[in-house]
């Protein structure tokens, strides 16, 4: 059976690439600290020696549109082109080209459907920064095949938070039962409190530091009970109008397991939003 070599959850900040690669005058004052934290975070994936990456993210109105919007979608393609003109324009992100693992995609689709998740699929998916940002931070060589899984945290009506958790649990179970000798890292990115296109955007820190503090604690300790008790589709508007991306963190809590503390926890309070990085090593607890 396959091995879940690492479970990783993080924010995906599209400004990291430009901040980390800029030099001299254009380099923001927080860049060095940010790069140091990312270097340490990257090591948590490297040491897990993964062969394939399951990448959970969310399309930001690039390929998926309101005339045909899936709630949960699995990419099944041999290759994925990545990043878009407007991400190059706004964030300076490079175009990327990634290999897929169709066998694992097909397996997750078939078994996921049979487990009660009516997953959509795509045979030609262009990936956006929700998946490429964690590659840039965690695996900048982008040399491993991926299986992208997209969630709708963006275009209401959205699935309930508990469905994200349930999908995470199923992904974990299915990967562990996959008849393969490969080492699989399951990586997902979301947000803590975040406001985009609203009056609280781009403040000196995230729009709701108290939510961020609680959220980091829930994730770090695997406290799904508290997260599910306090988080609802309605409540997520309060910390910031883009905070539904937190449900991708909840999905990753489902992958990591209830009450399983993360082996690695770090965060960085930036202007605009708090960065947070978590890694679990399921092998160590077996």
């Amino acid at each position, binding site marked *: 059976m396959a091995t879940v070599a690492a479970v990783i959850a993080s924010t995906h900040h599209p400004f990291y690439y430009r901040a980390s690669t800029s030099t001299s005058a254009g380099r*923001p004052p927080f860049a060095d600290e940010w790069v140091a934290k990312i270097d340490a975070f990257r090591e948590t994936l490297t040491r897990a020696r993964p062969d394939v990456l399951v990448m959970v993210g969310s399309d930001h*109105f*690039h390929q998926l549109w309101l005339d045909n919007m899936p709630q949960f979608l699995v990419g099944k393609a041999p290759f994925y082109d990545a990043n878009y003109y407007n991400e190059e324009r*706004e964030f300076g992100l490079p175009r990327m080209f990634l290999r897929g693992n169709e066998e694992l995609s097909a397996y997750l689709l078939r078994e996921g459907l049979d487990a009660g998740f009516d997953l959509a699929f795509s045979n030609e998916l262009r990936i956006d920064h929700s998946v490429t940002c964690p590659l840039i931070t965690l695996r900048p060589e982008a040399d491993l095949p991926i299986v992208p899984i997209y969630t709708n945290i963006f275009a209401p009506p959205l699935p309930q938070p508990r469905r994200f958790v349930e999908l995470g649990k199923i992904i974990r179970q299915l990967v562990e039962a996959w008849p393969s000798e490969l080492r699989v890292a399951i990586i997902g990115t979301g947000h803590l409190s975040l406001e985009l*296109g609203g009056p609280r*955007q781009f*403040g000196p820190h995230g729009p709701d530091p108290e939510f961020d503090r609680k959220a980091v604690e829930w994730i770090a300790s695997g406290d799904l009970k508290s997260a599910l008790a306090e988080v609802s589709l309605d409540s997520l508007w309060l910390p910031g*109008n883009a905070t539904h991306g937190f449900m991708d963190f909840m999905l990753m809590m489902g992958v990591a397991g209830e009450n399983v503390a993360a082996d690695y926890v770090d965060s960085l309070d930036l202007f605009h939003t708090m960065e947070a990085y978590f890694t679990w090593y399921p092998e160590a607890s077996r």
Partner: protein
Amino acid sequence: MSKYLVNKFLFTVDRDPELVERYRADPGGTVDWWEAERANVILNLPTGERSTWLTFTEEERQALATHDYPKLFELGAHNFLTLTLFIAMFERDYDEPLGFQLEYARRLSHFALPYPDIST
């Protein structure tokens, strides 16, 4: 109310570099042209298989034609689509990093929770 169509305008302009410039330079003309020629095009269908029923309300048309992003927020246009396109058009006019984004927040500062519904 046609929030979907407002979003479709923002979405289709944002992904096309020429349209971004055209909308910046001539908002009224771009909105009129787009509503006449593009509003009913279904994005993954041949243009002959278009819809026949999509139009802006006068309020939506006016908000788009005047680059009135606080009004678009009030009307429930998707916050991410509006922000992304308006950054593309106007960030260049500000000297300070995030100058436009902070001005954008300031111009929306009269909105309190709950914000207008963005469901479509």
